[in-house]
């Protein structure tokens, strides 16, 4: 074990592992420190949806770029990461939402993302188990699903193959601007650059970079292949994600490659216990029953809760922290970390080498928050 590295990455979730892979691939002496097991935190709590979102231009760019990278990666790793290119179906419950479908169609279409408007007949044909009567929806056929812990593990193995050192069960107590990392056992390690990819724990290490826990619940069923054909989401989902309300739920179904269905979603602020809250779980499920009553009789095998790492402007932090010199951030991806992890890793590696990325990266720089000006992406 060494005490000096080019880069130390703190956090072995999918974001940290993607960073490690790209950075090590470029020849940097890389160490990744994970306080429990690779992909065992928020990475293991999420669904695994690879989705292009349009809540903001910067979010869209990062998601679309990421999805392209995932699609390429999945070609040779399909089974390892349990990849399934099932597409996303956004369901419109009323005319207002159907109008929003048209706006989103224009947005995606003008940016070269494959997208299709479905009417009442075609939405019923493509998802026969939805409650009849929905006006239609937006189909994004190139979205996909994968199994996040396997993807994180695979990226950590790839990082190792490029010479990275991965240390699990290693907790970091603090970091200092001079590039030193102190571990729980008191030992110190040094690097030219330290990347904080610690999800909702990132604020412990960079105190003026706000990342807060946004709790979510999920339920997974037994295998029902063919029950749903796409990731299905209500159009109200983005309202829920965007909301500052303490609690919100939104209908969201995830078809795992193995036929299981993950049912979501919920969002809560100010609840930091990992216990499942059956009251909000119930609200979430009842919302879902409104869209697909057949869910009621499926066999539920597990429920769990997890924490998304949320930022004040709903945009992740990717890049150097101003005034910290050696401290960088790759965190704050809220509910889109699985999608955007791969692009985050590539972008941060390019930033280290002063190479221009394929998308504008200014919106993700931590300086937007830390300098005191919260700018919208």
């Amino acid at each position, binding site marked *: 074990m060494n005490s000096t590295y080019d880069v130390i990455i703190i956090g072995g979730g999918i974001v940290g592992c993607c960073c490690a892979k790209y950075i090590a691939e470029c020849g940097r002496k890389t160490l990744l420190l994970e306080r429990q097991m690779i992909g065992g935190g928020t990475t293991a709590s999420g669904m695994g949806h690879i989705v292009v979102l349009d809540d903001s231009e910067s979010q869209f760019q990062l998601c679309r770029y990421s999805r392209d990278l995932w699609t390429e990666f999945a070609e040779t790793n399909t089974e390892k990461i349990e990849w399934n290119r099932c597409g996303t179906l956004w369901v419109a419950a009323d005319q207002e939402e159907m109008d929003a479908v048209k706006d989103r169609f224009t947005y995606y279409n003008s940016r070269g993302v494959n997208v299709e408007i479905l009417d009442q007949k075609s939405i019923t044909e493509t998802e026969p188990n939805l409650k009849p009567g929905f006006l239609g929806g937006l189909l994004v056929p190139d979205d996909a699903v994968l199994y996040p812990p396997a993807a994180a593990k695979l990226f950590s193995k790839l990082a190792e193959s490029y010479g990275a050192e991965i240390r699990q069960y290693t907790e970091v107590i603090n970091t200092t601007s001079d590039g030193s990392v102190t571990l729980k056992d008191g030992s110190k390690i040094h690097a030219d650059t330290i990347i904080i990819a610690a999800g909702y724990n990132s604020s412990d290490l960079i105190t003026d970079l706000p990342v807060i826990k946004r709790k979510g619940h999920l339920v997974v069923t037994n*295998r*029902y292949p063919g029950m749903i054909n796409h990731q299905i989401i209500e159009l109200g989902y983005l309202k829920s994600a965007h909301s500052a309300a303490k609690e919100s739920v939104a209908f969201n179904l995830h078809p795992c490659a*193995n036929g299981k269905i993950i049912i979501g979603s919920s969002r809560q602020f100010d609840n930091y216990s990992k216990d499942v809250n059956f009251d909000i779980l119930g609200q979430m499920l009842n919302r879902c029953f409104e869209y697909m009553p057949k869910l009621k009789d499926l*066999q539920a095998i597990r429920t769990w809760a997890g924490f998304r790492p949320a930022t004040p402007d709903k945009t992740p932090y990717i890049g150097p922290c101003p005034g910290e010199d050696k401290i960088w951030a790759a965190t704050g991806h809220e509910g889109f970390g699985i999608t955007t992890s791969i692009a985050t890793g590539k972008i941060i590696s390019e930033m280290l080498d002063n190479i221009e990325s394929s998308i504008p990266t200014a919106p993700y720089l931590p300086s937007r928050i830390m300098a005191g000006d919260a700018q919208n992406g």
Partner: protein
Amino acid sequence: MADMITIYINGNEHSVREGEILSSVLAKAGITEFHKSPDGSPRGPLCGMGTCFECTVTVNGNQHCRSCQTKCKSGMKVETR
């Protein structure tokens, strides 16, 4: 003595006693594969106490029913996969 009823196993009519345990009926019908495992292997009952989920079949359209805990009812439609 319970009444004789008709149930359907993979589309075929079978005459059984009402309330007979489905896993026994399936075994008597010569069925050894109750369902396939994720990688396609044949599976059948194991624990006999309702916890292993290896005896599961589809009953009246509902998947994953434990046949060792299911009593036959008239007209029941059973599919093994």
